[in-house]
Every structure is written in structure tokens, then in C-alpha cells.
């Protein structure tokens, strides 16, 4: 108990044995793996709920469920995907990669790291258990607008509130840990402008998390007291305002969507140079663009609220600020393309995912820009056009980058190679089906189909049918993905330490399967310069 375990004597003791290893672990790789598996399971659960949504929407009429249950599906799908799948997956990637990338032995606060993870299954469990409660699971959308979520919500809402508290707590601890790791555990010879972009984007994301998650905690706390202790925050009869809820929620919610995309930008900024065999174009402008996006994300929140009856001046301001985000995001897109320009490209699985990320995310960004035009948002708001927008940025953006990252770093995590042929089949399967799934939703939205409805008029039938078929096909692609990953872990061929010859980064200087504690002695200046993206 009292013997110090300095990193230098770690090769004497590897991980503990048995199940308790995972419960007690303070190792960033173990915790990273826990996060990734948790996220993957939640992705399957959230996806299964989405399959429920698509099945009910396959044809007009109510076939499978009660409308209230449909709303629960939509709500829980959104919540589980955002808080259970995408965010934990990125924290998992951060855990795995950041210490390796900055030349550190482990995370700065390893015991707290364990706690950030081990809150999640409890929070997720509480959230999922609401399905089995009297009155059903929360059914007010992942944005839980008051008063539908206060006066008019089932009892299970209080459990949902506490689950959100726990999730927020976990995210804040995770973010603090990453900040401390990047700022304090970085190899002494590594300057800030030597840091790989994934580290930069995560550092900036951490500030978004610490700024935004506590505000969410405040919002749900006010909901809790409005529901149970008679306060009037969101109730006009006591001088409050339901729209105030939306302001507080979106002050969190908008930074939240960038929390889900900035690390994705980081991932792509690693993969494209590797497979273009060319240094990343515009390293420093990438860093500044990321920071600008993060800053702007705090001052545009009310573009989700153009129809709440804000004064015109407010609408104009939020429209202008929102449009501005296109500029730094554009810088990133242009930099990626310049990186590919006159490179020497090959298209292994990670590159396929990264390149298609650039395409599809940009399409999602364009529809975002259209939504940002306040008067036009009158026709788009709360239609499937919005649904199409955010699935393009979230599924073919955030999720795409997570899959790309998984293929890219899987050799480093497992010491083995995945099956490239199968991975290519999976890619084409997924990219075709995902577009069949989400592209028609643009048309549905423009034609006037509101979101969050369990049934629709006949004019929307054809595109919904196409979308659902695409959805089932896309869903089934995850079966193959699961197989590819398990197959890699169990039967993969041994990988080299640097399986992508032109890849840069300190992580590739480690053993093929990265050792339990990454860097026992900090890397030298020379090594850092060699492996820097900013060369």
C-alpha cells in the first residue's frame, strides 16, 4: 500500500490479474479501453433505439408502439448517442493517446481518471432504467425543454436529472485530467506548438467541457427544484420563463456540439498527412482555427432559438455570429485539402474514413450554415432538415472520425493488424447506406415534415421508406464492424511499431503494442522534433 510505484520500476509489475484489474485500474490505457468499450456498447444500444424509430417511420400509420414510447425512443436515442457514445468515445481516445503523444508515463491524476470512467456505467444504468419505470422513460427530446420536462413529465425525469448530474461530473473530471496531463505531464522538451493536433483539439475541448457542463448541471438542478420544490425558474406564473430554460440549455448545448467535433478534427489532422505522405498544411492556423471555433461556440447559442420570439436585435446578432463559424471551419477544410494536394496518396481504411469525413462533414456544415440564416430557419426549424444536418455532422462527422481513429490506432492498441479487405467492404457498405439513410431527410424537411413525430402524412411516405431501408442497412454494417474489431484483437497478424510508414507522432516510437506505461523517460528534443506535425 505504501510502496511508491514510480514509473521507473513499472516493468516489474504489469497489470493486475482478473476482473478486478478493470475495476481498480489507474492506467490510462486500461481506462481508455474501458471508455471505448462502454462507448461502443452505448452506440449499439442507441443505434438499436434508432432502429426502433426508423421501423416505426418505415410507413405511415402507427404500427409498433404508442406515440409516447416513440418520443421516449427519440429522447433516449439522442441522449445515449451524445452522452453515452460520442463523448465517452472521445474521452477514451484522449486517454489512450494523449499520454503517448505528449511523452508522458500516464495521465496526471490516475485515480480520478478511474472515477471519471466508473461513474459512467452507473449514470448510464440509471438512465436506461427509466425505460422500466411507471410512466415511461423521459419523452421530451434530448433538449428537454421546460415545461414539458417539468410540469408535464413522468416521475422518471428525476432519475434522468441525476443521471445527467453524474454524466456531467464524469466529463468535468475527465476534462480536468486532460488539461493537467497536457500542461503538466508533457515531455519537458515539448513546446506547446510541438503538440500534435489531436492533443491541441482535446485541450481546447476540455475548456469547452469545463465551461459548459456545469451550466448544464445548473439547468437540470433548476428543473429539479421546479419539479419538486416549487421554484418558478421556468414558469411564467411565478415570473420565470420557459425560454430561459432554452437559453441556459443552449449555452451548454451549442459548445456541446463542438465538444463532439473538435477532437474529430484532431483525428483527421493526423490521418490525412499520414496517407498523403506529406506534412500537415498550416499547422499553426489549424490551432488558431480550433481556438476560434471554441470561442465562437460560446456566443452563438441562440441560433437554436430563432423562433422563440427573441427581440429582432438578438436574432440578428446570433445570425451573424453563427455565420462567422464557417470561416475558421473553412480554414480547416482548406488545410486538409491542401495537405492532400500533390501528396502521394493511398487509401487504407483510416484514410477512407478520414477523406469521407471531409466530404460529408462539409455537407453537414453547409446545411448548418443554411440553418444559421435566421429567416430561412423559419422554414427549416424542427423539421427533418435539421435532423439531416446534425446527423451529417455527428454520424458522418464525429462517429466517422472515431471509426477512422479506431482503424488508425488499433495496431498500436492491440499490437495486431485488422483485416484490410473486410475493412474496405465495411467502409463502402457504411458510406452508401448512411447516405441513403440521411440524405433523403433533407428533402423530407424541406417538404415540411416536422421532427419528433411518430406518424406522418402520405406525401412523406416514399422518402421515409428509403431512409428506413438505408437505416437498417447502416445498422447492419455495425455487425461487420464488431466482427472486424474482435477478429483483429483475437487473430490479427502482428503489427509493426509504425504500421503506417509515413505516420508521425511519439506514439509510433513505442513498442508495437504500446507498453503499459508509455514513456518512462521523457523523449528527447530530437525525437520530438522528428515526430512533430509542425516541422
Amino acid at each position: 500500500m505504501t510502496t511508491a510505484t514510480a514509473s521507473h520500476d513499472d516493468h516489474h509489475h504489469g497489470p493486475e490479474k482478473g476482473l478486478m484489474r478493470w475495476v481498480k485500474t489507474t492506467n490510462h490505457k486500461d481506462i481508455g479501453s474501458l471508455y471505448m468499450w462502454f462507448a461502443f456498447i452505448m452506440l449499439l444500444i442507441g443505434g438499436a433505439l434508432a432502429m426502433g424509430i426508423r421501423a416505426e417511420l418505415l410507413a405511415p400509420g402507427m404500427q409498433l408502439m404508442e406515440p409516447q414510447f416513440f418520443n421516449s425512443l427519440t429522447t433516449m436515442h439522442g441522449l445515449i448517442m451524445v452522452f453515452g457514445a460520442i463523448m465517452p468515445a472521445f474521452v477514451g481516445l484522449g486517454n489512450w493517446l494523449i499520454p503517448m503523444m505528449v511523452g508522458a508515463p500516464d495521465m496526471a491524476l490516475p485515480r480520478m481518471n478511474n472515477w471519471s470512467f466508473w461513474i459512467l456505467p452507473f449514470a448510464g444504468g440509471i438512465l436506461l432504467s427509466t425505460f422500466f419505470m411507471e410512466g415511461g422513460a423521459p419523452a421530451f427530446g434530448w433538449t428537454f425543454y421546460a415545461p414539458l420536462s417539468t410540469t408535464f413529465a413522468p416521475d422518471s425525469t428525476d432519475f434522468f436529472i441525476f443521471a445527467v448530474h453524474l454524466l456531467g461530473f464524469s466529463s468535468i473530471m475527465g476534462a480536468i485530467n486532460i488539461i493537467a496531463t497536457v500542461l503538466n505531464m508533457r515531455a519537458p522538451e515539448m513546446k506547446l506548438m510541438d503538440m500534435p493536433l489531436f492533443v491541441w483539439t482535446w485541450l481546447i475541448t476540455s475548456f469547452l467541457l469545463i465551461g459548459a457542463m456545469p451550466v448544464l448541471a445548473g439547468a437540470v438542478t433548476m428543473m429539479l427544484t421546479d419539479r419538486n420544490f416549487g421554484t418558478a425558474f421556468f414558469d411564467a406564473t411565478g415570473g420565470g420563463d420557459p425560454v430561459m430554460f432554452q437559453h441556459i440549455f443552449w449555452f451548454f448545448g451549442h459548445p456541446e456540439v463542438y465538444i463532439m467535433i473538435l477532437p474529430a478534427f484532431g483525428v483527421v489532422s493526423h490521418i490525412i498527412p499520414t496517407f498523403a505522405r506529406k506534412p500537415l498544411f498550416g499547422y499553426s492556423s489549424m490551432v488558431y482555427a480550433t481556438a476560434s471555433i471554441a470561442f465562437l461556440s460560446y456566443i452563438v447559442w441562440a441560433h437554436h432559438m430563432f423562433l422563440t420570439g427573441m427581440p429582432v436585435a438578438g436574432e440578428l446578432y446570433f445570425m451573424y455570429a453563427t455565420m462567422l463559424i464557417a470561416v475558421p471551419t473553412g480554414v480547416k477544410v482548406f488545410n486538409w485539402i491542401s495537405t492532400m494536394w500533390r501528396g502521394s496518396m493511398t487509401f487504407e481504411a483510416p484514410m477512407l474514413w478520414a477523406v469521407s469525413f471531409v466530404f460529408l462533414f462539409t455537407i453537414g456544415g453547409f446545411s448548418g450554415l443554411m440553418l444559421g440564416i435566421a429567416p430561412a430557419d423559419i422554414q427549416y426549424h424542427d423539421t427533418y432538415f435539421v435532423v439531416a444536418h446534425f446527423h451529417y455532422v455527428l454520424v458522418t462527422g464525429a462517429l466517422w472520425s472515431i471509426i477512422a481513429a479506431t482503424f488508425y490506432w488499433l495496431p498500436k492498441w492491440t499490437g495486431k493488424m485488422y483485416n484490410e479487405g473486410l475493412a474496405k467492404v465495411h467502409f463502402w457498405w457504411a458510406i452508401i447506406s448512411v447516405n441513403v439513410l440521411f440524405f433523403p431527410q433533407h428533402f423530407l424537411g424541406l417538404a415540411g415534415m416536422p421532427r419528433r413525430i411518430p406518424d406522418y402524412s402520405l406525401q412523406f411516405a416514399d422518402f421515409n421508406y428509403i431512409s428506413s431501408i438505408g437505416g437498417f442497412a447502416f445498422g447492419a454494417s455495425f455487425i461487420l464492424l464488431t466482427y472486424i474489431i474482435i477478429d483483429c484483437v483475437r487473430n490479427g497478424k502482428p503489427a509493426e511499431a509504425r504500421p503506417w510508414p509515413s505516420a508521425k507522432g511519439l506514439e509510433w516510437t513505442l513498442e508495437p503494442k504500446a507498453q503499459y506505461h508509455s514513456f518512462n523517460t521523457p523523449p528527447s528534443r530530437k525525437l520530438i522534433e522528428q515526430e512533430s506535425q509542425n516541422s
Partner: protein
Amino acid sequence: MKRLTTLLSVLVATMSTSVFAEYGLNMTEGVTEISKNIYDLHMMVFWVCVAIAVVVFSAMLYSMFAHRKSKGAVAAQFHESTTAELAWTIIPVIILVLMAIPATKVLIDLEDTSKAEMTVKITGHQWKWQYDYPEEGISFISNLAQDSKDAIRGTDEDRKKAGNDNYLLDVDNRLVLPSGKPIRFLITASDVIHNWWVPDFGVKQDANPGFINDAWVEIPVGNEGTYRGQCAELCGKDHGFMPIVVDVVTQAEYDKWVSEQQAAAKAAADSANKTWSKDELMAQGKSVYNTNCAGCHKVDGTGMPPVFPAMVGSPVANGEAADHIGLVLHGKGAMPAFKMLGDSDLAAVITYERNAFGNTGSVVQPSDVKSAR
């Protein structure tokens, strides 16, 4: 098979205008100046995005084809260019400014309701719309039409027939508006947030409980007809089932409609003064119940416990009439207030609840309701 052909024809003929119209691939142009401005704005931004996409994606695609290792491409090593960075910062800013100018104009125009010559107040309730014409003294509730309701769990055939191809987009009482007149909408809600949206008018506005938002519309003469829309803010269980139907008529027809409505309102007020028989009340009550109450308490009165209590054996329905009247008039928790219904309708529905479903309560007369208000 039919669907497959549809899919193919859509894919093959995406650009032909007939397909645009048939399948609704694009935003409606609508009939008002505002909706047309919005449409123009939408198309402008859309084409700008397409143009940028063409430039950006062709550069990318070209690079992906030409600069491949398998084609023997050798990687260049450049990785910086301040000129390029400046260019692709400044050019987008200019494009954005050019987009913002017309957007600002349209926005300011559509928020200015001062020109309005008449007012309609719209109140969202779970899950129906209430329309009041304060100046004309008209007030009524608009529910999803019964044949659509029946078709929800019916067959495809039922859905085709419902509302003449307007399944789920048809109501019992339509909003009637005159053409050629600027109209102000005052939009609010009694319970949760709803959103009143008619795409063809370019009007979509949140209905916030406790606050009144306004919007306006002027339907140019010559565009008389029926326009449809839906609630566009998640408002609970039946959010998908609270459509909006507006009949736009000429001023003359509108005036006629107004006087008819006023006469009917007077007749209803008179009938509230007479004493009804139990059978009359039960018959009337059944239809009021099925349109207004069955959404939560179910047609057979079994409710959806624990949130929506059953009427069968309900202590309220079998208890004091005064409590029952009070509860329905003023609501309680998630049970909405129904004082916007007329005295006779309320008397009828309360009597119905007290005597149907095996309940044994007293008969309530319109005069009882009136004095309880």
C-alpha cells in the same frame, strides 16, 4: 416493387421539375411575400453552398485521383502559405457578408407586425389549437379530424381515404382568414410550448405558455384556398397529431362566415339557458368526450395510468358534481383547463363522464357550469 420504381425514378430524374413538385424535394415557395422572400434566400444560400462545394470538392477529387501513390505521385513537402491562408479566410468572410445583407432585410420585415389590420389569437393546447377572433367575438377549437384519428391504427386504405389524401393534415374546425388583408397572429399556449407553422405563409412561431408572440401574414388576393401545417415543437404524446388547416377566402366570404359564426355562438349561448334532458346531454357529451378527452382518458374511459387516470370508477366522476366541474374548468397538473369549451358542451361531457363507463354520478346542466365559472 412500386417503392423500388419510385426510388429509381427519383434517383434518375432528380432534376426534372415534375419530380420536384410531386415528391416535394424542395422548400415550398408559398403564397405570401415573406414566404417567397424566404424561399429566395434559401435558394441563394443553397446555390452559394453548391458553388463552394463544387470548387472545394473538385480540388479534393482531382487530388485524390491525380496525386495517388499508385499513379507514381511523389509527395511535395510544402506545408505553409500565408497568402493562401489569408485568401481562404477573407473570401469566405466576403461571401458571408453578402449573404447576411438580404437575410437581414427579410428578417426585419417579417418581424414587423405593425401593419396588421385584424388580429387572430392562437392558443396551443395539448394537442389542439384554439382560435380566437377577439374583435369578432368568435372562438373555437380545432382538433385532428376524426377520420384521420381512426386511420392511425387502420389500414393503408383508411389512410388514403382520410381527409382526401390529407391524412393527419385535416381538422374538424378550420381557421378561416380573408385574403388581401394584413393579419396579426397572437400566439401563445396554455400548457407546454407548441409551435404554429404554416409553410405556405412563411409563418412559424413558438407558442410559449405565459407569453404572447406575434407574427403576421398577408395572403394576396387570388390565392384563396386551403393551406396546411403542423405543430412544430415537441409538445408531448400527440405532438404529431395537432395539424393546422387554414381556409383562405375572399373578404366577402369571410364576412359571411363571421356572421354565421356569431349567429351560431348566440344559439349556443341560448341553448345553455335551457334545461337539457339526460339523453341529449349523453349524446352530445359522447362526441365532446371523444374529441377532447379521449386523447388522454381513452374512448373506453380506461385512461393511461398512472399519469392519465381512468374515468371508470373515478372518485371525481362518481363524487360531488361541483368538484368535477371545477376540475374540468380549471385543470389540475397535467390535466388541462377546459373553460374555453361552451357551457353546454361542458355540461354534456361532465354528465357523460358521470354516467358512462358504468359510473353513477348526477346529471349536470349548463346552468351549473355557468354558475361555477
